[in-house]
């Protein structure tokens, strides 16, 4: 009995002393953390994808609270809803950022871009790119070993075995940008999602001269400038034998699409064009 009592008292006293020490230590080393950081962190999607450019959601919350304005801060996963909530918590106004989505700027399918060699090294685009130009005649195109699919945290990219190219699931893509950095050929670009998901872009990155590019891939941009001449909004620039459509200037008029002789300009989610008499003429 006595033994138990001694043990209880000893442990109780040690516990009490410890509690007192800890209390004062906690007072002494108290770090004030803005409670808003936790609040902001709560509304973030907790994907920890790094798409905002900060180390995880907590890092982004911290940056939001510390920043003076909301300029340049955007959570691509949460989108404008999330950013508005954060703005409300912080008593600021959110800067409207256009939602973005990843697009693949290569349409060299297996059928249209014949293989000239066969690679049997490590199954990784990064390794292949450090070794040689690629299995086809195009040294700019997709290597097809799915580095982008592996890095996607949102299960939004999958390889299409028929085309040999990755396909982006526009419902799932959050524009975090992981695939953009993973692609050793820099083929994935974050572009404006566009009204009703409609997008127009040049799906090619080949800087080869027209004849060379065309020989390697029948879908290659040959830098012919037809789209550049057609565009009424000066959204298209041609440099290094490659056309580029500026998504800030493009008004989605679709005039450039039919003039492209190699079908390198892609339109996504547009309703099919009405049959007009001049349409076949433009194709020819």
């Amino acid at each position, binding site marked *: 009995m006595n033994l138990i009592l001694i043990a209880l008292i000893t442990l109780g006293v040690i516990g009490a002393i410890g509690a007192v020490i800890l209390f004062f230590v906690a007072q002494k080393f108290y770090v004030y953390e803005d409670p808003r950081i936790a609040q902001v962190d709560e509304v973030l999607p907790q994907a920890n994808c790094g798409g905002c450019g900060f180390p995880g959601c907590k890092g982004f919350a911290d940056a939001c609270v510390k920043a003076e304005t909301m300029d340049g801060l955007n959570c691509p996963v949460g989108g404008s809803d999330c950013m508005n909530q954060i703005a409300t918590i912080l008593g600021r106004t959110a800067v409207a950022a256009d939602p973005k989505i990843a697009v693949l700027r290569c349409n060299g399918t297996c059928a249209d871009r014949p293989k*000239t*060699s066969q690679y*049997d*090294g*490590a199954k*990784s685009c*990064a*390794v292949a790119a*450090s*070794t*040689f*130009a*690629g*299995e086809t*005649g195009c*040294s700019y195109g997709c290597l097809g070993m799915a580095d982008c699919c592996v890095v996607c945290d949102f299960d939004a990219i999958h390889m299409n075995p028929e085309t040999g190219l990755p396909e982006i699931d526009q419902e799932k893509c959050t524009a975090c940008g992981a695939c953009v950095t993973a692609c050793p050929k820099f083929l994935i670009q974050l572009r404006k999602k566009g009204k009703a998901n409609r997008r127009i872009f040049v799906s090619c990155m080949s800087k*080869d001269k027209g004849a*060379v590019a065309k020989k390697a891939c029948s879908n290659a941009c040959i830098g012919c400038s037809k789209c550049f001449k057609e565009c009424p909004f000066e959204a298209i620039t041609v440099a290094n034998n490659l056309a580029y459509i500026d998504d800030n200037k493009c008004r989605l008029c679709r005039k450039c699409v039919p003039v492209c002789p190699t079908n390198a300009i892609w339109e996504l989610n547009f309703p099919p064009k009405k049959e007009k008499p001049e349409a076949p003429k433009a194709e020819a």
Partner: protein
Amino acid sequence: MLKTFRLGGIHPAENKLSANKKIETLELPKQVAIPLGQHIGAPAQAVVKKGDAVKVGTLIGQASGFISANIHSSVSGIVAKIDEVTDASGNRRPTVVIDVQGDEWEEGIDRSETLITEITLDPKEIVERVKNCGVVGLGGATFPAHVKLMPPPGSKAEVVIINAVECEPYLTSDHQLMLEKAEEIVIGVQILMKAVQVNRAIIGIENNKKDAITLLSSIAAKYSGIEVVALKVQYPQGGEKQLIDAVLKRQVPSGALPISTGAIIQNVGSAFAVYEAVQKNKPLFERVVTVTGKSLSNPSNFLARVGTPIKQLIEAAGGVPEDTGKIVSGGPMMGKAMPNIDSAVVKGCSGILIMKDFESRRKEMTDCIRCAKCVSVCPMGLTPSYLMRVSELNMLEEAEADRIMDCIECGSCSYICPANRTLLDYIRLGKGKVGAILRARATAPKN
């Protein structure tokens, strides 16, 4: 007991099929494509334009920057175009394409076979001549030779080591060159010794080339300070750090240059090129290329002009056999499979290896069984299995801490791995990334 390096190493089947085949001078091609970047460092700047007439030995590309090399025309004719042309790796690189007309040489190049033993130039002039003649390391790494002959301030050269190891299986170009041009090579060594002002040189040759060892020893005996050392056959003895260890018993510290041990290393082919540059005023525009392979009807050693299509060399050796799986530029260990054989012979192309389909195929990769064979064969004392893992997972700090930059990419680990792991592929990738970080760190402003 023969000397060799102390750590790791392997001994793959030698397969020197083209040994003792006389060096044949290859027929002039109709058109040559001479890339402007054939060396480590900045590519040369073209100094000719379309339509210009050039002779053999005319300067067509001027070195740009300290680590760069001049490029000379290997034929006489008219410049057809200066454009991007697909190289052996499939990438498009700036290239001078010349239509061949006749074979007219630039004046001032001594085309005679007479041996010139007397070295009249002083050290500075030698380095200048080597630089002007565009001599690069002919062992495969193509490091500009004149840069090696100018040791950085604070370091002192003690000995010139000539790399005549040729440890790559199949290749015989250096071996055959030693047999046919032994006198010239020894004079080339003398020139190198004079250029860096040392009185000692060591020629390291693996013991599977006994005829070359005997021949060079007998010639070297006529000159003072040149020693021929027979080395145990062990891959990758031709790596400069391994060779220094083998002949001098000194180890190059991690991250340091070979000069830190007092050694200046040049390939035996480069020694011959230096002889030709200094004594004959002949720029580097041709080299000996071994064309070999088990299925090839006539494995040979060719003296080919730079810019000759690789296809032409293969045809001269009997044509591409039917069951060819891979055509490799270089040897089987460090060479790279070429997706394009229309590309040209470059200064660094020591061999062309034709591999049969079944011998070229990689076997399926399985899980690492932790046997540590890769660790035991690594000549740099690294842990390849771990380095592959960290490179794959992008753990670059760990890769750097475990000395990934020391990897010499010899491929011994991938060769020995019983699980067929793609060790070197990933290590090379990680090395590239860590290298980029190191360069960024070096140029970043200090705060």
